[in-house]
């Protein structure tokens, strides 16, 4: 019972985890991205279509990354090069994503693919309780484990990561040091978008191996809230994503065993919980437990330098 619930938790949390990591990469460079929801949908459709036409989920994942990388470059161009309003551009991306995936997903509705397979890791997968949840999973889940570590290592242990954080904290200082603010921001936004896309692909390749219009169902927005919860760190993002995975898993479990509570009320849980988490983490943020990048949300114009 616990094993099954834990397994469902990890699987439901993974798309949110990828999306949150992508959003953290964006915001570390100082760019808010409210287009996560739309990018997830684009990733989900690209991943599904790529797998459908090639027969290989691996190609699907690459397609999801590439297509959302390209879509993310629209947000990057507007917010970085053209110094446009980041909030509106993100909202536009979400609308755009919902719309284009509805349009191009028409032919994919009702199609089936063989989704990602589980690849048990010999030995570890037999561990009690955690074996099934963490070591009998598919390729993308293992990738997400590595990615959590890689993102931390990149941001805190590499020179480029330090430069990226500087760009997010104080772009004028970074500029003075000869770091190209626009190049770093552009690549952070597009690469982050690519990661969000892989999160979307997880929905259509592993969780429910099919394409459904608007299948992200608010997960992108949950990721946006989780970025604040995580204090812009990848480790806490993992914890937060699994927290939400756990709630989803429990909600599904409740529905399966049948309770007196209406399914509609149960389905509200993740959204109510997002608000609660957001309130708590915002209050903690004000108490100084962690800090958001100082340059977050502000376009950088060299002429404004003081």
């Amino acid at each position, binding site marked *: 019972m616990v094993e099954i619930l834990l397994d469902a938790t990890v699987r439901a949390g993974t798309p949110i985890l990828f999306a949150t990591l992508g959003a953290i990469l964006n915001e570390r460079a100082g760019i808010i991205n409210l287009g996560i929801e739309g990018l997830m949908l684009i990733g989900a459709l690209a991943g599904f279509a790529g797998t459908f036409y090639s027969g290989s989920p691996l190609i699907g994942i690459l397609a999801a990354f590439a297509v959302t990388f390209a879509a993310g470059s629209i947000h990057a161009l*507007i917010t970085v090069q053209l110094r446009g309003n980041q909030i509106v*551009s993100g*909202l*536009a991306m979400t*609308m755009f994503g919902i719309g284009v995936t509805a349009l191009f997903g028409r032919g994919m509705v009702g199609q089936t693919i063989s989704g990602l397979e589980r690849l048990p890791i010999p030995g570890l997968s037999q561990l009690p309780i955690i074996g099934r949840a963490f070591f009998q999973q598919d390729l993308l889940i293992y990738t997400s484990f590595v990615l959590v570590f890689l993102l931390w290592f990149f941001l805190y242990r590499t020179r480029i990561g330090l430069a990226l954080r500087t760009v997010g904290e104080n772009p004028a200082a970074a500029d003075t040091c000869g770091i190209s603010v626009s190049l770093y921001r552009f690549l952070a936004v597009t690469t982050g978008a690519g990661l969000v896309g892989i999160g979307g692909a997880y929905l259509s390749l592993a969780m429910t191996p099919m394409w459904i*219009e608007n299948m992200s169902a608010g997960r992108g927005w949950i990721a946006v809230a989780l970025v604040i919860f995580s204090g812009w760190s990848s480790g806490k993002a993992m914890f937060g994503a699994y927290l939400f995975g756990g709630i989803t898993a429990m909600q599904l479990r409740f529905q399966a065993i049948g309770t007196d509570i*209406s399914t509609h009320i149960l389905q509200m849980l993740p959204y109510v919980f997002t608000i609660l988490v*957001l309130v708590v983490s*915002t209050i903690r943020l004000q108490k100084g437990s962690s800090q958001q990048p100082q340059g977050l949300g502000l376009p950088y114009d060299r002429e404004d330098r003081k």
Partner: protein
Amino acid sequence: MKLVIERRDISSTLLRLTAPVVSIAVALLFAGVLILAAGINPFDAYREILYEAVGSTYGLSETLVKATPLIFAGLGVSLAFRMQIWNIGAEGQIYMGAMGATWVALFSGLENHWLLMIAMFCAAFVCGGLWAGVAGLLRARWSVNEVIVTLMMNYIAILLVNYLIYGPWRDPQGFNFPLTAQFADAARFANFFDTRLHSGFFLALFCALLLYLFMERTIWGYQIKVIGSNPQAARYAGMRTGVAIFAVLFLSGAIAGVAGLSEVAGLQYRLQHGISSGYGYTAIIIAWLARRSALGVIIVSLLMGILLVGGDSLQMLWQLPIAFVYAFQGLILFFLLGSDFFIQYRVKLIKGVQGG
């Protein structure tokens, strides 16, 4: 040769006014490419949209019908924009307004038409307002990001309405369909010209006028503008920004809530699925395109009304999903944001290397 970007001393008024028009035109072009890629001739599609939406009296009336909730919601969102507050939750506020109005219509026991109208209006106003007020309170008290809260409240509102129409409010005579009983005649808006056009449209226009007067002729409107453009100065001047944030989000949600009233009392006569098919999201782009002006909201809402009526018929003709309208709206926003750059900056080509 060198490309130089320099800030304009005064932003160009000509560009400012033409930018929305150009953005829509370019977005039409790109949307055309997308439609083409989906295997449909874009010229046929656009001709069809225009023909359906403005080619006949009935089409025109349908456009006004679609524009009605958009005007309400657009006004609500643009009011919050004035104070740099992002109300992304008009969709949920519409649902809540519809819920409040439905409760009065079905369960209050009132029978007098005008009493019902006033009570339904108040219920929709308060329900929509409180729904947005949650975000207002959290933002004012703890600076919680209102974008995420208002958005999450959308999902919760839709699920709450679903709960009601699948559960306690389901019409016992409704053959198990998820909808409430029909409203009595006394709880319905009047219709005009033998079309579906109803009083809600005129109420929306009146609402726009009131909001204009509120913003331009009252001290509160002035305060909202000051807080929006310079919160620090407002605080020095002794304005209570926290109270203002809550009040503005409440009012913003309340106006969007009236859109819900208008949909159930003017059009559907019951609470059911899809009371709002994304009007609340379209309202965001309306508010942005209208550059916060009440008149602008009306004009852009009418344009979006055309798009929605046309979109409906494209769906019937070519199974083009109605959600495609979002893609078009997203494109408009992208180009509008892009054009802002050229309003504020000048791009010059300078010969030689001495420039820059």
